[in-house]
């Protein structure tokens, strides 16, 4: 009953004229971002941060959340029509989705993806409604040891699920934690790594770091591609799926919803992992796996459902534990901090308008996306043809202005530029930016609780296994490490045996 009342209140917040306008703006920008190859949801959410400074906290999160799940819808369009994934989570659809387009079924593929995304989004929102309050209630009992172990598990999972080898992601985590240690020591107030620079004494701003690592480095990575244009488009055809289509894809949409909702909760997971796993599941359960890769509708509807469901369920750890599970949520975490709101277990009780308003906006936003997706397809296809040179110049200009507006000083512009160049160089040697940002955010939480626990226990490390919750979390972390180490040990043994 409470939940229904809260949900009604949340819908009222979402349907307030100002919020409704920002839901519409968020999902529209998200769709465009999804359509435009090269500019992912994380850089865009970072770019939009300056716009949120003057907004109410709930409106700010509603806008940024809309961009995130809107991008999941939009990414499908270019994947299907142009075989260019607008954003990473839609890579899977470039195979079967584009194959369907070549067979004159582009509209069918896009319609199924839109309906699947809508269903997946609603199911994930239901999970958010049902489980988030209980999880927040449970997390209220967490002490310093539990938070320390939770941060440790979170970082291990981020490293485990990030692209590339785990060791490189661990290096990225280390870099993020070290960057977070610049400035005042949270316990004693002593200054670290400031080198006498007054601007460094308060630490470096997370938003400037995010803008540089995600936004500027992305532009620099694609700097040569930005000179080229985008061409070609296809005939869309009938978009609304038939009853038979829906019946044939109901299973894939259902499974995609479950897979996406579950994987959205995993740190480092999100849309990309969810769509890849969903594709694998669909291929496995299909009676005609040989059709996969040649235009199987389930290979589009399942993964597209999963990536949207994941984008929504990933709000659960952020809003209940204060742990952003991926890069986009890390930016939204930063947006909430700027607004003076600390995400965590108390958010749902202290700021119910934000939590339930965001939930309500997800219902409204998904509905808007479903309605928008079908009639506005031709417009979004045209957006994909905006010259990359214009997009990259506009992005650089917004980054400069945005970085300045964080605190009204040029130092943050310098931080953004430095973070962009460092991010570019790190990406060139295979170190991903997302774990750096996530570690940067978790760093102060991790350090403060780690050191507080040690003080409480008189230096005894046994405190980190002093409660059932901490033990379970530690075991999970151990299992993750073990699952990475075992195959490596086995491979090494095989190599040695082969040599003998």
């Amino acid at each position, binding site marked *: 009953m409470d939940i229904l009342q809260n949900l009604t209140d949340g819908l009222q917040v979402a349907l307030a004229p100002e919020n409704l306008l920002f839901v519409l703006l968020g999902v529209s920008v998200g769709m465009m971002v999804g359509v435009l190859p090269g500019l992912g949801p994380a850089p865009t959410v970072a770019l939009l941060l300056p716009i949120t400074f003057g907004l109410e906290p709930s409106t700010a999160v509603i806008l940024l959340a809309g961009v995130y799940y809107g991008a999941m819808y939009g990414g499908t369009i270019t994947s299907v029509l142009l075989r260019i994934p607008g954003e990473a989570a839609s890579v899977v659809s470039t195979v079967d989705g584009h194959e369907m387009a070549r067979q004159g079924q582009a509209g069918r593929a896009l319609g199924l993806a839109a309906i699947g995304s809508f269903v997946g989004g609603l199911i994930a929102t239901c999970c958010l409604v049902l489980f988030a309050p209980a999880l927040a209630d449970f997390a209220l009992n967490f002490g310093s040891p539990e938070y320390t172990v939770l941060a440790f598990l979170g970082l291990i999972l981020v490293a485990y699920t990030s692209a590339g080898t785990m060791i490189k992601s661990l290096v990225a985590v280390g870099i993020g934690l070290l960057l977070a240690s610049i400035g005042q020591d949270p316990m004693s107030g002593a200054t670290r790594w400031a080198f006498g620079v007054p601007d460094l004494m308060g630490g470096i701003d997370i938003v400037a770091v995010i803008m540089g690592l995600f936004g500027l480095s992305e532009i620099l990575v694609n700097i040569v591609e930005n000179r080229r244009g985008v061409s070609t488009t296809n005939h869309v055809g009938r978009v609304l799926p038939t009853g038979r289509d829906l019946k044939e894809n109901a299973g894939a949409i259902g499974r995609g919803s479950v897979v996406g909702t579950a994987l959205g909760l995993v740190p480092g997971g999100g849309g990309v992992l969810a769509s890849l796993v969903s594709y694998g599941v669909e291929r496995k359960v299909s009676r005609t796996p040989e059709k996969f890769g040649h235009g199987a509708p389930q290979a589009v509807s399942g993964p597209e459902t999963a990536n949207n469901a994941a984008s929504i369920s990933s709000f659960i750890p952020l809003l209940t534990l204060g742990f952003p599970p991926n890069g986009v949520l890390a930016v939204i975490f930063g947006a909430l901090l700027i607004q003076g709101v600390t995400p965590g277990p108390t958010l749902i009780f202290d700021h119910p308008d934000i939590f339930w308003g965001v939930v309500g906006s997800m219902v409204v936003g998904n509905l808007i996306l479903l309605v928008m997706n079908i009639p506005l397809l031709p417009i979004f296809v045209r957006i994909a043809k905006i010259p990359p040179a214009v997009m990259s110049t506009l992005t650089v200009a917004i980054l400069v202005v945005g970085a300045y507006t964080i605190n009204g000083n040029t130092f943050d512009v310098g931080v953004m530029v430095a973070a962009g160049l460092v991010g570019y160089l790190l990406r060139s040697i*295979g170190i991903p930016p997302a774990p750096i940002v996530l570690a940067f955010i978790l760093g102060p939480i991790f350090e403060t609780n780690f050191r507080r626990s040690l003080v409480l226990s008189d230096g005894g*490390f046994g405190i980190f296994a002093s409660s059932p919750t901490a033990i379970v979390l530690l075991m999970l972390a151990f299992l993750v490490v073990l699952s990475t180490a075992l195959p490596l040990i086995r491979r090494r043994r095989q190599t040695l045996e082969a040599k003998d």
Partner: protein
Amino acid sequence: MATTPADAAVTPADLRFGRIGFAVVTLLAAVSTVGAFTTLDFGSPTEPGPGFWVGCISAATLAFTLVALLNPRVVIDGVSRITRADGVAVAAAVPLLALTPPLLTLLGLTVTTALVCLYWFTVITRTAPLRGLVGAVAITMGIVVVFIELLQVPSPLGTLTGIR
């Protein structure tokens, strides 16, 4: 950039690029570790000082970078060697990016944005000069309208130009 997945054919140039890159990261991690232990108060596990956390994290990062550096399979994974074309383009962007903070103070937000856009269009993306000029003016106008007029975000007043 030329992406190199771990299982793809690895050129010696890719491996060398990855090794040099990782050597630099390892060196920085080593400097950070030494700095943490020598310049910050380490304290003890019962009373951890400001250097305790930094020292632990630096040492762990150094260990990870060393493991990576010694394993060619890890070094090469995900390496996107910076090609000559990429290097030239990024090198052309660096002076502009480095000059942007002082330019904001000297020229204000509007003029700096216009200059950044014009430079990016003509030098970085190699757009025709006239098109670049039109694009730069259009983008600057858009930014002024959205950020300064509508959102009224703080913007620096140029000490040389006297305008925002």
